[in-house]
């Protein structure tokens, strides 16, 4: 029910952002729910709308935390 994909905002104008989802694949993402986002931010996109801003360091931190808990 919730396929959402991370993308990088390449440019943004009003509530329309153009996001790169990897390898140069671009699509418009509407920013109605993420008013503060700007170019260079990473966003999570569902059904053409950004539902969250992502911080790459959060993902890294998660792996670090898990490695601490479960050993590496």
């Amino acid at each position, binding site marked *: *029910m919730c396929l959402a994909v991370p993308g990088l905002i390449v440019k943004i104008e009003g509530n329309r952002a153009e996001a790169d989802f990897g390898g140069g694949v671009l699509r418009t993402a509407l920013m109605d729910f993420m008013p503060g986002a700007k170019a260079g931010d990473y966003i999570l996109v*569902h*059904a053409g709308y950004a539902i969250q801003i*992502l911080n790459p360091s959060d993902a890294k931190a998660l792996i670090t935390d898990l490695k601490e808990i479960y050993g590496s």
Partner: protein
Amino acid sequence: MAPDFLPSDTPLAARISKAIADTMQKIGRPVTLMEVCGTHTMAIAKQGLRAMLPAKLRLVSGPGCPVCVSAQEDIDRALALAQEPGVIITTFGDMLKVKGTETSLESIREHVGRAPRLGSLDPRLGGDLRIVYSPADAVEIAAANPDRKIIFLGAGFETTAPAIAASVLDAQRRGLKNFYILPMLKLVPPALRALLDTENKIDGFLLPGHVSAIIGEAPYRLLETDYKVPSVIAGFEAAEILRAVHRLLEKILSRDYKVENAYSRVVHADGNPAANAITARVFEPADAKWRALGILKNSGLAFRKEFQAFDATANFALPNLNSREPQGCICGLVITGRAQPSDCPLFGKTCTPADAVGPCMVSSEGACAARYYYG
């Protein structure tokens, strides 16, 4: 260029899997966990995670596939609208193959209006179906086709509701008078309540990560206060799912029923207020009929009065739907975790993805389809 956000880490996944086995040993009895979300069902199946879990740990699917939980009447309503002359049906690809009582969208496309690729489509015959990635695309189609009526099939949960609401607001702003939504939206927490109110042996819930990104943690508190069943909000990568499963087992062991967020890089405790505000402007909670669960109070979303002009149910005359459940299908038991797909006598024999009896096999997120394809 978007980085691979959570790159797979096979050794880490293996270690979490071992920890799961160890905790299961300590629990000392079989455990049943329910993954509520269809996307979780698919993520677990595609990443082959079942093979990494001990035999006594059972993962069952829940009512988290928006197409599978739609009542037969809702599907039939969509199919009736698809045959209306002058209508363009816009939909997520998921809906295309689902069967109603008499037919499916795919069949209508082929037999009624002729598939758009074969010469020019006659709008007088209906059957004009377009797959879209976003309800916003449906608004564009409405703007580009002022002489047609565009209906978007609004299936989904709280993750998708804001997008549908935002597209309605956009259509309103642009003065479009030919854009409609068929509302089929459902809400997750009432379904969890209904599941636990009936006889159900669910020891813990893997909560839907992206629904939670919208609604936050609070709506799940009923699991703690009213039912004392542990729950963990989980992401979709292998390590995140396995971590959430392990946390659920630890909570079972320690009788810790607090709702836990294991997907905090995406889910904030208060969800996404801007998204919720937009949903609330256009929609209000309403009773809704679910497959197998019946009518649940305030479990769906209906248009507020001021947006009636966009409600397909208020603007199209629908025939009497003699909706019937598909014969022999136990989809209702599967989505409530009371049966596994392999328990169904039709599974893999008379019910396969190519020729499905019920929605759980034909939907791209259906539990039966996942089991059929991925084992």
